[in-house]
């Protein structure tokens, strides 16, 4: 199977380039794209650089652009891809080396929305009660793995990565707004009213298309906008 992989080591390369590898995926028992990357690194080129950890789609390390679409290398079946398999880093973020991008802009937007439960009421002795209906509002939100596939497929995020929170950050913003245990929903909404944080979303829906966990950031963004109207912030 032929792979065409984006290479760039700032220490030794004047410019990025695509490098081809022919790998016998059967002999190396490769099922997923990550298996192939590991086989190439182990057997052909120990300099090939990428992130990986859990290899089962829950840690979010190996988001990359595979045949033009952002996805996780560890859950993408080779058999579903056309050759040559073209692998590039996630778009729109600075390259550190090969398939490793600098995620700091992405994490900064995540931190900006105060991604932690805030509750100003006295802490009870036992758990705070939450009905199954209230809890179900968090489904489709809390499962985010911060892989950045969504935000780095979003043209609005490419354009304003410093000011637009982006789909991943906004999904988490809504995760706390929607949590019946959080007392700061109104405050959270009012912190997003500037022209950029939420309102740069143009409903392009790339985020929904690429999310490897099947989550829907656009829906969360629309809920945020609706609540802003309702709450009059």
């Amino acid at each position, binding site marked *: 199977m032929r792979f065409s992989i984006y290479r760039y080591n700032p220490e030794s390369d004047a410019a990025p380039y695509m490098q081809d590898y022919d790998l016998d995926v059967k002999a190396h028992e490769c099922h997923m794209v990550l298996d192939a990357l590991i086989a190439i690194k182990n*057997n052909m080129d*120990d*300099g090939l650089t*990428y992130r990986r*950890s859990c290899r*089962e789609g829950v840690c979010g390390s190996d988001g990359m652009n595979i045949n033009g679409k952002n996805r996780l290398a560890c859950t993408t079946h080779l058999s579903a891809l056309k050759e040559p398999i073209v692998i590039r880093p996630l778009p729109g973020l600075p390259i550190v080396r090969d398939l490793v991008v600098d995620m700091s802009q992405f994490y900064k937007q995540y931190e900006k929305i105060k991604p*932690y439960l805030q509750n100003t009421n006295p802490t009870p002795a036992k758990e705070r009660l*939450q009905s199954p209906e*209230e809890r179900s509002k968090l489904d489709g939100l809390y499962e985010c*793995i911060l892989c950045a596939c969504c935000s780095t497929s979003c043209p609005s995020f490419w354009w304003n990565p410093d000011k637009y929170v982006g789909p991943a950050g906004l999904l988490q913003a809504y995760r706390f707004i929607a949590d019946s245990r959080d007392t700061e929903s109104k405050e959270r909404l009012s912190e997003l009213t500037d022209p950029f944080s939420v309102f740069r979303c143009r409903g392009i829906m790339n985020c929904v298309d690429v999310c490897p966990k099947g989550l829907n950031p656009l829906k969360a963004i629309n809920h945020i906008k609706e609540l802003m109207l309702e709450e009059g912030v």
Partner: protein
Amino acid sequence: MAVATQTFDAIIIGGGGAGLRASYEMAQSGLNVAVISKVFPTRSHTVSAQGGINAALGNTDGRDDWRWHMYDTVKGSDFLGDQDAIEYMCREAPESVYELEHMGLPFSRLDDGKIYQRAFGGQTLDFGGELAHRTCCAEDRTGHAMLHTLYQKNIEAKTNFYNEWFAIDLVKTSTGIAGVVAMNIETGEVVYLKARATILATGGAGRIFQATTNAHINTGDGFGMVLRAGYPLQDMEFWQFHPTGIAGAGVLITEGSRGEGGYLINKDGERYMERYAPHMKDLASRDVVARSTILEIREGRGCGPKGEYVLLKLDHLGEEVINKRLPGIRDLSITFAGVDPLKDPIPVVPTCHYLMGGIPTNIDGQVLTIDKDGKDQVIEGLYAAGECACVSVHGANRLGANSLLDLIVFGRAAGKHFQQSVKQGLGFREATVEEIEKAMGRLNRWNNNEGGESVETIRAELQKIMQNDFGVFRTAEFMKQGFDKLEKLQERLQHASIKDKSSCFNTCRIEALELDNLMATAIATAYLANERTESRGAHARVDYPDRDDKNWLKHTLYFEDGRIGFRAINMKPKEVKPIELVARHY
């Protein structure tokens, strides 16, 4: 060579559940704390934990008692667990779980709004009576929910993070540990991080086996560091094989799937656990279910064209239970086994999952060694918590959903004890230039070695040896062979080399540094597995099939120079009567 120094009150190595619980405890109290993690914290392996966390809340059953939880845990440990530590963990469990809830962990809920609790392996009411529903969960993504919640609270508490930094070695002085030498993976910059205390929260080392549920990053980094500093590891022969890893892929299918009513079948469609464990059946403890499954496969009742696996049947649970309680494992089955559990059973096989042994500590998380007379000695400035530590609450076999509990209870305990120690005047230890340089020795070796064997060659051989000779069933013959092969391989490792020497995000060099730690872990396992001539919990010897309380009711210790030591098991809980030794049946 002069190395830049940065100073903190405490350094936590590892950004998983235990590390982040410890750092949160300390950062909240205003201490200057840094977490160094070789991956962004939410990529740590805690994220893969599925089933839940045990605490005797009694939400589902209407009644529960931490003493029953303690009884189950001692029995599950095959009496190798320390009863004072197990008592502490089970007693602290409810408060620790409520704290997580207050932090925002999105637990699944019962109709009355309380935390939902499911059944899990080895958990009973009334000291071995009916099945208990004691496992608090967030669907089947409890580890993910916990890790993200803890990371979020650390952001709020303004913990310092050194993300994508790799700890090379501890800096050891004549009076204890002074800090750690670590490398920025992105730039290759090496820094001496100096602290009043260093907390090891480096997790497990499942990557010493070929087939494992563990992430690629689980390479026993803390074990290597402790051994190289001249301190011992404890009970390293006790590796848990989880009964249900997806055949071929190794990916975990939670015990919670059996807790919700799933069960294992052989090629005849027989629910074989009814034969091996008539009372608890598929929810017997993991060592029992894993051994029974291997026996089924060996006796020709495995499934598939080669009879290499068994099947986990879930379809009878119905769409609502599977989608509501087990959505994550449905996804994993479809992706990695090509099977939708709504319709078909999942091919599974016992797979290396967890290390019960590790760095010996007391209940406060302080790391221990033994002196010449075999007495416990606290190492100044060094703590350990989580899977890398051996308190020991899991003994010879861990019960499901006690590991997330271990992380939280002992991460917190280490944090609390450290705060107390600072109040009582715990200071810094001053390291000499030589002591700091010593901690860089192996980095220099990898930077200088040329023309040797590759990391992959050595690693693949190591994993093969461990898989073949130190698996679910063990014999002296195979273990001795494996041990000899490992010793030769260790010698070869000293001459191995990497081609890529660049300083920019050099993952090749990181894998090389990790390989040192895998090797240290494998050798420790091989030493102690050979040593223990009995079968107890997860250590099952064909040549010594029985538990031998007369000779082996004790912890084993291994030092890097090959010395072996022993520690007594604590059978003196503080508040309750000791749990008496009995034969273990489920």
